[in-house]
């Protein structure tokens, strides 16, 4: 069941577009803001609001990298694995993160604190390697800095 706040926000998005279906990505973003991931039940609720089939909604939800269809940790680490970060050693960061958190790409640590995801080029290739934790960008990252960096996120 969606909350009143979610339904109000989705109805607002519907009011901005020529037809209901066109609001589906924005509706899914509303769900993400409130719950950080999109459950099957949420897909069905969004489908009902937008007069779509759940399969249509899921075809969009499952297409985009940032619409999570599985639960994620309280914080998401987006590690850039594209070419400039590859040349500048993102793999060392990946190895260090694996050791610190005992998780690989796509996994969440046991206390639900961090989910680790690979990310396509973050557009800071002149300061590679780079990563984002939630909405915070970190550039020219060295493996030795990671421990302190992660401490900020509880």
């Amino acid at each position: 069941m969606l909350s009143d706040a979610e339904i109000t926000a989705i109805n607002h998005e519907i009011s901005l577009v020529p037809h209901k279906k066109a609001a589906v990505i924005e509706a899914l973003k509303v769900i993400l803001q409130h719950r950080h991931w999109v459950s099957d039940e949420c897909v069905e609720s969004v489908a009902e609001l937008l007069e779509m089939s759940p399969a249509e909604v899921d075809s969009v939800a499952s297409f985009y990298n940032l619409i999570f269809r599985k639960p994620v940790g309280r914080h998401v680490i987006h590690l850039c694995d594209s070419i400039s970060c590859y040349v500048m050693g993102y793999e060392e960061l990946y190895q260090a993160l694996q050791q610190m958190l005992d998780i690989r790409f796509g996994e969440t640590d046991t206390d639900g604190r961090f989910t680790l995801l690979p990310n396509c080029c973050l557009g800071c290739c002149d300061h590679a390697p780079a990563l984002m934790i939630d909405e915070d960008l970190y550039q020219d990252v060295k493996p030795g800095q990671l421990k302190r960096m992660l401490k900020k996120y509880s």
Partner: protein
Amino acid sequence: MERPLTKHISFRRPSLALEEYERTGGYAAVRKALKQLTPEDIQQQVLASTLKGRGGAGFSTGTKWGLIPMGADAPHPKYLIANADEMEPGTFKDRLLLEGNPHQLIEGMILSAYAIQADIAYIFLRWAYRKAAVLLQQSIEEAYGAGYLGKHILGGSWSLEMHLHTGVGRYMCGEETALLNALEGKRATPRAKPPFPQLSGLFGKPTIVNNVETLCCIPHIVNNGADWFKSLSRCAEGGTKLYGVSGKVNHPGCWELPMGTTIRELLHHAGGMKNGHRLKGLLPGGASTDFLTEQHLDTPLDYTSVAAAGSRLGTGTIIVLDDATCPVGFVHNLQHFFAQESCGWCTPCREGLPWVEKTLLSIERGEATPEDIELLRMHTHMLGPGHTFCALAPGAMEPLQSALHYFMDDFERHLTEKKCPYANHLHR
């Protein structure tokens, strides 16, 4: 040397707010255009400026605009969209413009929208550019407050609404018809052309999609004229260009330089190779361009010259391959990206790219045979132009085909030594 696009960008202070931007001559072009120029005047000026689209394809902006229906019978609403979904690996030039001077983009969009008589403008921004999102939203609100956006702009008859849309992450959103699908709330798959977006774009209405850097050129063209814009360049393609360099160079970065600056000069701006490293090759304009090598250092970085050298200018941001980085691993990383970001709409791309990626991985691990090299060669043809629905897979094949040409000895060493001859890569 003039640097119109980046003159007022400095990261030692916050980007210019509206009043500061106006003090540097900002929005003068909008005032001039709405009072003195017809939409057709601006279209003509941009065509005469020889401005080519800075998103990678290098198509004439004036020609693109020229295909949109004008006049009393034209369907409305018409749309103008800024493609700020910068996601080509190795590309970080639009971020500079978005974070450094957001009002310049908004002014360029207002002028472009006026030139095509658009009613609604969108900025399609990638999610990762959080700082740009905040600045653009503030700047749009400021522009509304000052009467540069909204109903009856500067008291005239023309109105424009502008919205910021942040994406949810897919490389395909940078392809203009896929971007339109994403804005309509659909999967970002490409559309068949024709009809071209100028006739049937967003929600079936006439639409122009332009890159951020392209749009940022427009205020300067309107202020200073087409001849001035052409004079900025060293070649027949007008303007300056935002060039970038990343990889193992001393000072990776982004610089605005005359169009036609050579690769050698650009690498000089980047401070040359890092100590102990040698240049082995480079991608001149993002992940989907062919490798060039040392023999091409004096190639001017303009669309025509880079094409003549066997590659593409693309986004103009160089990625350097140094002699300590394995070319097979490098190309594998690129193909991993393309395979993952293929939208799956057409079969050759959806099936072919993962096959290429796996084949490269087996070479990198020393588990491949000479037939695998032939398999890669076959894919460079079968996924090349004319075999797929859009340009993603042909773009992916550009670094692969040129790597097979320039770095064949490296591929062969992986086969004969049955391992990667370059040390230090970790998780393969």
